[in-house]
């Protein structure tokens, strides 16, 4: 009879470790193709170190220096906290972010619940409408609300004496801007459920509300925490919205901009940057912990939940979802509508004036071309770099000591708000002693900055896709003496093409819409569309600003559609070899 081995075996022999200590463990010689892989990995890591780590470190250094560059210890911090207006911003930023989180999470959860647990019609449409804010710069919501409730807003009367400018407008706009981000996470969390739990509860006669409290909520716990973190961070570090609709209400993100660009006070700007980094770093750490927990929740044998029709409930959910969708459309629609209005609020005839005169003739259309160029570079080179680096990290061997460092650099950017990254970039690249100073003010620095800014999500998408393919492909290739790059291009890339497209699309859309980091980095020749909106708004040309915002939304939407068709086409072409 075969025995099962006792659980405790393979005991560490006494003296074994001392033996290892004396004799260095042998290392395999590297094949020249391995060496190329190692060189590329070192290069990728060095790139991240220079374009991510170095700028951040520069912020820390700047915080300890005065305007002339002399070391002053914590003097900048002291004066910062002694300036009441500035210290007030901390409090403002915090309560606004908490409030936005408290509003958005329940709303998005209900929406996600309707999408995953009810039998309402038009789920795909509802979901896509709710996702629209992702296609626009966050400040689009702010611009729309100015048209709705601003000084010349068509529904200003609804507010009575109150003003939309300030905290109210910021919270409202942030709610719209963050809604899709929370929704995405919550839909995923609610989809990751095991129907068998519900069947068991149902068999025991558990009422719906108890099933909700005992199964649904605990199951979505990590999703809820994660979504809350994302919304909080977003609200804390968003720049466009408070800039456009904040009025005199100061927040940390706008303070940085004022201090650094307005007053050229790098020291205090760095202090704010560090202040912004701290809570974001904490939420980020919590989120990472949560993600790790969540992945254990679903086993391969889980049975997906299929909702059953229930008239009253479905009707209620449907009403709620369409209400949210209507609000979304009203928000987006207003900016689009206003961009065609001849002369707000006096002449509502439709015209292309804002596009023709406000953008093209004013020479600002170039900003749009710049944005598309930037997005195209990010979507191609950025996606290729991210995917290539992830491949080298996951699938090649050698340089084992270097790998954890590169891995860390790949996942940290998510914890750094755009404003802080941008700040680090100017501090770092503006120094004329820096050999990379020549990049300052070029399109290249915008491309690199944007890729780094959105590195983590892209990296994680790539890693997930790479983890799904058989780890032994590389081993088999080596046994057949095929160098890794052949397998990379003949097998890995074709198999991971959907993920690669997803990364590319993500980078494109974010490059089109981002404001925060690049607002520090553009030069007159490389102004971007999203930045132009801020400038147009500041100059009072809000009509042209909305025209530019509309252009961005339409472009992002078209690009998403194009990617969708590309994906469908690809699926059809590769159907033969994907699971038959």
């Amino acid at each position, binding site marked *: *009879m075969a*025995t099962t*081995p006792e659980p405790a075996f393979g005991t560490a022999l006494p003296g074994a470790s001392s033996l290892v200590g004396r004799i260095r*463990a042998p290392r395999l010689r590297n094949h020249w*193709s391995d060496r190329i892989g190692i060189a590329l990995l070192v290069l990728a890591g060095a790139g991240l170190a220079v374009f991510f780590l170095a700028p951040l470190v520069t912020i820390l250094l700047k915080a300890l220096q005065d305007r002339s560059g002399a070391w002053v210890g914590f003097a900048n911090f002291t004066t910062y906290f002694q300036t009441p207006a500035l210290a007030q911003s901390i409090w403002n930023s915090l309560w606004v972010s908490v409030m936005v989180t408290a509003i958005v999470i329940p709303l998005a959860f209900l929406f996600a619940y309707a999408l995953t647990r009810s039998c309402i019609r038009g789920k795909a449409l509802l979901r896509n409408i709710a996702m629209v804010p992702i296609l626009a710069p966050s400040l689009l919501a702010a611009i729309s609300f100015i048209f709705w409730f601003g000084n010349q807003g068509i529904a200003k009367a609804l507010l009575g004496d109150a003003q939309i400018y300030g905290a109210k407008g910021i919270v409202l706009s942030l709610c719209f801007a963050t809604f899709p981000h929370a929704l995405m996470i919550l839909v995923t969390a609610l989809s990751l459920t095991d129907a068998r739990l519900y069947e068991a509860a149902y068999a025991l006669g558990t009422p719906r509300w108890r099933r909700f409290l005992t199964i649904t909520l605990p199951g979505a716990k990590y999703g809820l925490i994660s979504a809350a973190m994302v919304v909080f961070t977003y609200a804390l570090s968003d720049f466009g919205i408070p800039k456009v609709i904040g009025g005199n209400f100061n927040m940390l993100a706008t303070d940085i901009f004022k201090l650094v660009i307005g007053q050229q006070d790098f020291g205090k700007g760095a202090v704010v940057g560090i202040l912004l980094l701290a809570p974001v770093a904490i939420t980020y750490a919590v989120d990472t912990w949560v993600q790790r927990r969540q992945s254990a929740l679903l086993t391969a044998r889980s049975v997906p939940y299929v909702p059953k029709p229930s008239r009253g409930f479905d009707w209620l959910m449907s009403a709620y979802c369409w209400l949210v969708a209507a609000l979304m459309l009203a928000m987006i629609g207003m900016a689009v509508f206003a961009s065609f209005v001849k002369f707000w609020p006096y002449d509502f005839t439709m015209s292309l004036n804002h596009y023709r005169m406000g953008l093209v003739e004013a020479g600002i259309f170039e900003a749009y071309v710049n944005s598309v160029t930037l997005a195209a570079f990010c979507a191609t080179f950025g996606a290729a770099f991210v995917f290539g680096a992830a491949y080298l990290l996951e699938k090649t061997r050698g340089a084992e000591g270097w790998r954890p460092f590169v891995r860390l650099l790949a996942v940290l950017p998510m914890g750094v708000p755009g404003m802080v990254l941008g700040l680090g970039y100017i501090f770092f690249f503006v120094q004329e002693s820096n050999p990379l100073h020549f990049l300052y003010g070029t399109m290249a620095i915008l491309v690199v900055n944007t890729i780094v800014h959105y590195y983590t999500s892209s990296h994680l998408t790539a890693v997930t896709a790479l983890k799904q393919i058989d780890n032994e492909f590389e*081993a*088999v290739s080596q*046994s057949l003496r095929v160098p890794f790059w052949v397998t990379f291009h003949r*097998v890995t890339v074709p198999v991971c093409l959907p993920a690669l497209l997803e990364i590319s699309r993500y980078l494109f859309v974010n490059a089109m819409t981002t404001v925060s980091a690049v607002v520090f980095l553009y030069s007159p020749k490389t102004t971007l569309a999203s930045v132009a909106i801020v400038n147009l708004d500041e100059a009072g040309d809000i009509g042209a600003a909305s025209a530019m915002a509309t252009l961005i939304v339409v472009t992002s939407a078209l690009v998403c559609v194009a990617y969708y068709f590309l994906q469908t086409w690809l699926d059809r072409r590769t159907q033969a070899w994907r699971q038959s």
Partner: protein
Amino acid sequence: MSVSPPDYLVLEHVRKEFGSFVALGDVSLSVRAGELLCFLGPSGCGKTTLLRIIAGLETQSAGRIIQGGRDISLLPPMKRDYGIVFQSYALFPNLTIAQNVAYGLVNRRVPRAERDRRVAELLTLVGLPDSGPKYPAQLSGGQQQRIAIARAIATSPGLMLLDEPLSALDARVRVRLRGEIRSLQQRLAVTTILVTHDQEEALTMADRIVVMNHGAIEQVGTPFEVYRNPATPFVADFVGKTNLLPAAGAGEGRVRIGDQRFACEFDGAFAKRTDLKVFFRPEDVQVRGVGGETPNSAAAVVQGLEFLGSYSRLTLRLNGIDQALIADLSVNDLAEFRVKPGDTLRVAVPVDRLRVFAAGPE
């Protein structure tokens, strides 16, 4: 006596640690040219680790590996000479079967026509001549397995490594493929190492078996040797069905099991030890022609009877022995002796079939 073929692959004092965990103790082994060697052992005993060290996919902590007279201990996988088949097959899903099989040939600049000819030849060899234009997902598990083998041998490597190649298949396919892999291996005369935790697979396919446990080799031998003369209680227990009873030495040539004494051939040093184990196979238990004076015979009560086709397995209890024994009886014996549960029966184990082990060192 035939001269055994030369050693093709030699492992000398190979050790592997993962942190402080010792996955392989001190493994020395030689693999003869053209033989099929099985690594057999329970889960986690280090079989895969050893195979991966031979392949250069894992680096030994100490020790040497010599293949074909060349020290390959520190060579990267690409400089070694082997083909490998994994449990998952690892066929490239987006390439056709023909492209998969040709994968290693393309890189060696084999001319196109030559390559096509070789692919066709290999596909015929593994019995799937028409599968060239298909994709892996369109083949069954067993077919994919054969393609993975074809891909591994396409470049005519000197060594073939197979890690549990059959464990993902259902039982029937597994039995059929055992024979196919074996005959293919013999036709190509390629030195092969096959990892398995299935003793039946090892016994039916291997020229020699390496039985492993806890990162150490327990025994190396032909299937017959391993089955008939297990070197350690672990091997006795792991390979095949076994009776393994605690015993004590009872003077020259005798052991005591419970209250019964048995004669056997053993090392004189065991005579006074109390920590012995006695081993015999269920089929070694005899009922035919056993009488009161037959050596090593005793009365046994039949406790259970399990019908297993060509033979039946009895559970027996002997007077004065706590542990139940199992005995296999052929259908004929069973019919002749009309055994049923509750009966008493006289059974014997021939002296030369009893083996005695010491449970630990003296």
